[in-house]
């Protein structure tokens, strides 16, 4: 069947083509379309019956002349050729080179949809990754094999934060980063893509990076393929070549919007805000490809960037993502406007795997309690700040004023840090104690009495 060209397209609209009278086409099979100008587009079969086959065309259906379109069904799923040579390369969303170099030749071609990992084969992520960013390391630690998205909004420095993590991430005891990076951009601007490219270049890791770019002005449907192609490459690097892979994907919102666009064309029943009911399952297929596997050396750690429409964390995209990912780093406009970088809003931020990757055997024995105390003290301090805004700071008690000073120092010195500042976890924890010492020991009930004696710097009540 793959050598026959059919010219039976009966309708085309918004990236979908219906082919009539092609019996026995495999669901999910890859399709090649040749238009009247001889340009070749690719697509996927998304519904197959003997009388009509529905094809999703990645490059879109613009300027497609139904009578002069020739379609071949390739009879296999969408596959990505893989070899060690992909490192240092730049591909488009469908895995074709966009760096002017020849395509990757390999007998090893993998279905980009992957296969679900058997939960019994997973190894639980426990190795602490030091990002050098206090707000993350101290309070929302990342572990190897985790998926920890950055929830952000338009105009916030999520790209800079992601790039800083890529530059600084390492395991404790390691000197330099020994990660390879898979970078996927979908719906991102050219400027964003260039920013990352330059950042990789500057830190000299370009030959350890694989990029998959589908930019804002490029075909929307291809976006559905981009993360899958990138993750197929990541799985190969991690589980065949034993690399520790850091996957950075931006922007998941653009992906979900592309999914909605196609769903509407397909006539799927919408669930919330027009997004299809399978948005959750679809996002899960992507996010759940992060992780570790028993008896394999490599790992996939995932940092997706997601811009929350109108900064709304309850919007379906961040909401469903939050239910799948293992926490989230939330960036906030308020902190950013105050000039704090990175503007990590720590209270709604969370790392679910933190509890198992920190403490005595991993970072330092006081880490869990310190993190919990910072959260509690800062939450309390924000209440006081809210109060001060109403009744005026003059009316506050001494204790409250100290709490307020703590909040200010915490935001400026603990959360805030330089874009090139790489703090070790010890520096982060010591800084935490320095700030907690601004509060009386009695107010610190989340840390043990021994820890108070050891680390609290005087500060009597």
């Amino acid at each position: 069947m793959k050598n026959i060209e059919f010219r039976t397209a009966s309708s085309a609209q918004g990236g979908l083509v219906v082919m009539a009278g092609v019996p026995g086409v495999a669901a999910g099979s890859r399709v090649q379309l040749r238009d009247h100008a001889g340009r070749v587009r690719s697509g996927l079969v998304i519904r197959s019956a003997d009388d009509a086959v529905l094809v999703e065309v990645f490059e879109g259906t613009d300027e497609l002349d139904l009578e002069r379109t020739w379609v071949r069904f390739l009879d296999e799923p969408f596959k990505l050729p893989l070899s060690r040579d992909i490192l240092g390369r730049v591909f488009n969303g469908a895995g074709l080179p966009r760096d002017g170099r020849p395509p990757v030749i390999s007998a090893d071609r993998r279905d980009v949809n992957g296969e679900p990992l058997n939960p019994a084969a997973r190894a639980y992520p426990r190795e602490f990754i030091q990002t050098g960013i206090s707000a993350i390391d101290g309070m929302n630690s990342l572990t190897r094999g985790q998926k920890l998205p950055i929830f952000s909004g338009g105009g916030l420095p999520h790209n800079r934060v992601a790039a800083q993590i890529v530059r600084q991430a390492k395991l404790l005891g390691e000197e330099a980063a020994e990660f390879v990076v898979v970078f996927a951009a979908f719906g991102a601007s050219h400027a964003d893509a260039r920013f990352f490219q330059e950042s990789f270049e500057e830190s000299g890791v370009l030959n350890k990076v694989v990029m998959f770019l589908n930019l804002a002005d490029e075909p929307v449907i291809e976006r559905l393929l981009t993360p899958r192609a990138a993750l197929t490459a990541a799985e190969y690097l991690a589980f065949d070549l034993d690399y520790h892979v850091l996957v950075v994907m931006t922007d998941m919102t653009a992906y979900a919007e592309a999914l909605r666009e196609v769903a509407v064309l397909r006539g799927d029943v919408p669930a919330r805000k027009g997004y299809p009911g399978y948005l959750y399952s679809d996002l899960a297929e992507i996010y759940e490809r992060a992780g570790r596997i028993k008896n394999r050396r490599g790992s996939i750690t995932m940092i997706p960037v997601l811009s929350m429409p109108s900064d709304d964390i309850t919007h379906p995209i961040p909401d469903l993502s939050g239910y799948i990912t293992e926490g989230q780093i939330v960036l906030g406009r308020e902190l950013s406007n105050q000039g704090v970088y990175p503007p990590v809003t720590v209270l709604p931020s969370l790392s679910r795997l933190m509890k198992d990757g920190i403490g005595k055997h991993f970072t330092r024995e006081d880490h869990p309690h310190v993190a919990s105390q910072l959260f509690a003290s800062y939450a309390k301090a924000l209440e006081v700040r809210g109060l001060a805004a109403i009744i005026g700071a003059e009316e506050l008690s001494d204790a409250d004023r100290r709490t307020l000073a703590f909040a200010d120092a915490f935001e400026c010195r603990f959360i805030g840090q330089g874009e090139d500042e790489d703090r070790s976890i010890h520096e982060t924890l010591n800084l935490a104690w320095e700030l907690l010492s601004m509060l009386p020991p009695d107010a610190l009930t989340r840390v043990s009495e021994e820890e108070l004696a050891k680390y609290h710097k005087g500060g009597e009540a």
Partner: protein
Amino acid sequence: MGKILEINGPLVKLELPQTVIGEQIRVGRQGLVGEVIGRDGDTALAQLYEDTAGLRPGETAEGLGWPLSVELGPGLLGAIFDGVQRPLLAMRARSGDRIARGVAVPALPRDKAWHFVPDPARQAGGSLAGGDVLGTVQETESIRHRILTPPLIQGELLELAPEGDYTLDEAIGRVKLADGHIEKLQLFHRWPVRTPRPFRQRDHAVAPLITGQRILDTFYPLLKGGKAAIPGPFGAGKTMLQQQIARWCNAEIVIYVGCGERGNELTDVLESMPELKDPHSGRPLMERTLLVANTSNMPVVAREASIYVGITLAEYFRDQGYDVVMVADSTSRWAEALREVAGRLGQMPVEEGYPAYLGSRLAAFYERAGRVETLAGDHGSVTLIGAVSPPGGDFSEPVTSHTKEIIQTFWALSKELADARHYPAVDWLESFSGYVSSAAKWWAQHVDPNWESARAEALDLLAASEELQRIVNLVGVEALSSEQRWTLEAAGLIKEGLLQQSAIDEVDSFASPEKQFALLAALLEIYRQGMKLVKLGAPARRLIQMPLLAQARRWKSQHSSDDIAALKAKIAAIPAAFEPLLQEYAAPSTPREASS
């Protein structure tokens, strides 16, 4: 033999005459499995439990003649199954780290022999009815597996095997049915998951399920055989709380269904359970635990089935006379799977895209919980705890609101509490329990007669503090009277010293009912002592500075449940801590009245 007409996502249209709805089918060259969900003349609509990529119109389809069923027998405990009861450990041995399609592995191991001890009451020639115990197999140290007669069997027992080792495929007996048919009895039988297993009658639930979590047991109790829901936005600690319950509750069997949730969470359970000890029996927790895992990246149709697989397994152990807890994380994913399939069928959506039958399906599912008298005359129970993941944390969405009408205990998780790292983030104002009066009888009998009044006092204090907090937020704490400030402080003490409980602190993770009550009584004692002083005119400021308050906040993690005596000693010493202040304010010849 039929054939495939159309493939649309997980749905396939088949030419398959004479099939019935619910029948299992096998399609295509790879032999993918699914079930029929609709029929129109000679065409049938089916949903597949596996990814449909690569299937083509024209490939074969066959009906298997039975509905989705599970295998029930020895080998269940400690296992991890997918949403249609495929054993994931055996699958891994067969097909590697990833779940390949079309792999058929029996749910229970066929090569393993079990030591069967026949029940002396069963004699050849005697009558045999469904649910009767044929004998036992000691499956793990702590659990004796009772081999049950399949529920629908009724007849004369022709023979029963003597004590010895048997595999599942071997016959352990024969029964002659009323119609003269002779049926083989084995160590296991099958049961269709969408049909509740029969029992003699429903019983009243009487004993509380002790989870070791103070906010649950002391404030919003659940009974063995009851139904509870845990709704909460993401990050509110739903999974953590459910894992705590699965770890510490005093049920005999725990079934944990991961329905559309994270793979790593299941891995965590799998890796940690064998190391943790059951606080009640001292045996590894895995010996009483069974996992059903259909993670979010596994096919959506099997996700819908996984909840039914879990509850059927729970009923099976209930029928052996055990108290079973089933934790379903999360019922929202199950509802979404329902919605996804309904959407593909083009069914008219009602609220948020959910089909109109959402409420009735949920209700029917929760009704499978309960304490019953089994067919064999034993008593067993299934306690059902369902997590709900409301989009955006909005409790008015369809799944949460329908669930709220069905369940009796509602453990509402709050994003605000979780953000302040108050765990478990169970909101004491939003939560409720319809089982308080039944639980009170148990607590009065087994722990302390004052449980109900102490609980009420603490809840009143918490409610009062909520009012006061609103005032403080408006005008500052200085506007409160001493009495009000002390109320606020005492409520804070209860929140931090009692309600907050650390899952990762070894001592604090589990609290026995005795410890729970001791802590509650202690903190209330501090409150009352302080209130007495405030009424005598002592300013709340001085009370708040007492070191006792900071100390009391740490008691929960200083004394384990085995160390109640030391805790009680501290309680006894509470009045002494107030003595100096009492001397100071009670000393004047005319007692001062508190200014309010």
